């Protein structure tokens, strides 16, 4: 059987990642409270922070960073492609409602 994924065994980096995730969460909550941005800009900023957090979780906690390149790219490309297709299904239709109105 293939070995369990071997990677840099220093536990310290996981505590750093955990700290970074908590810090980014604190920034999100602060932004949510302060309402610095308009809703659309706020959505963009929060989504960007969420993508950074998810990259940390997938890369370090889920160890994808330490997997073979073919595994990394297969997962990332296939899931991203599906989300892009989903986006093109949902939002042009929503825009059409705005332009044409609901009858």
């Amino acid at each position: 059987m293939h070995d369990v994924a071997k990677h840099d065994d220093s536990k310290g980096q996981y505590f750093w990642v955990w700290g970074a995730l908590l810090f980014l969460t604190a920034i999100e909550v602060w932004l949510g409270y302060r309402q610095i941005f308009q809703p659309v800009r706020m959505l963009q900023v929060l989504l960007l922070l969420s993508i950074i957090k998810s990259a940390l979780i997938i890369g370090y906690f889920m160890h994808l960073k330490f997997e073979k390149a073919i595994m990394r790219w297969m997962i990332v490309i296939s899931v991203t492609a599906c989300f892009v297709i989903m986006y093109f299904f949902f939002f042009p239709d929503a825009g059409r409602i705005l332009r044409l109105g609901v009858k």
Partner: protein
Amino acid sequence: MAEATLQHTAAVGHEPAGEFEAPLFGAYSKKVGMWLFLASDSLTFGALLFAFSYNRIYTAWPTPFGKESIINATIMTACLLSSSLTMVMAVFAAQRNDRAWTRNWLLATMAFGTAFIVLHGMEWTHLIHEGLTLPGFPKSVEHGAGDYATISSGVPQFAATFFGLTAMHMLHVTIGVIYLGVVALRKWFLPILGVIWLGAYLAIPADNVFHYGVHALLLGLIVSAIILFLKPKDYDAHDVEVSGLYWHFVDLVWMFIFPLVYLMSTKV
């Protein structure tokens, strides 16, 4: 018949006995299987989040969540993030073949997950009592008639998307806690889960939505029992790592639900 068997063996068995081709993805099959499941499950949550965003952008969306809800959701987020750290520690312990610490870290992860579920359940109960509800929910005696009741009747998409998304996630966390319990304690976990299910069912009042929702634990108990009795095994480092992948995934999904559902709907 024998000739056909020989032809089949010649067609399939390219390698001599005991030798295997290196795996394409450099990982054992269980791990690749879990990754594929998670990729498909991410599309389920993706569709729900897209549906939420669709409604959020094109509807006069209410922003009812006050300080109390946001603090509660922030503590829940901290619980999930901390549970991911303890899960990583469990994987490390399993790789060292340290069975005691593997179990301890898994139990710590389950404790954080359970705290998340309990906090979420309390928040749901509070919101339902305040008037945020769906047609299928039991009617509470103390049903409120404030902001949340107005939102439920005026913008029904709010309650539908909020309860739909968070219920789906809560179900995944519950399944995760049961999964980790099976890996950590094996058959010893079954009576514990049974007691928790019965205790929760008896303790939660009949007008609370979780009075029936708690039967998810009974379903988990039945499925776990079937798995543990049909295929009893001693879970190894691979199993702990694969269960960890699932657990980190539920953490990952929450990283999108928390800002989109809660922080984009804060009361200014």
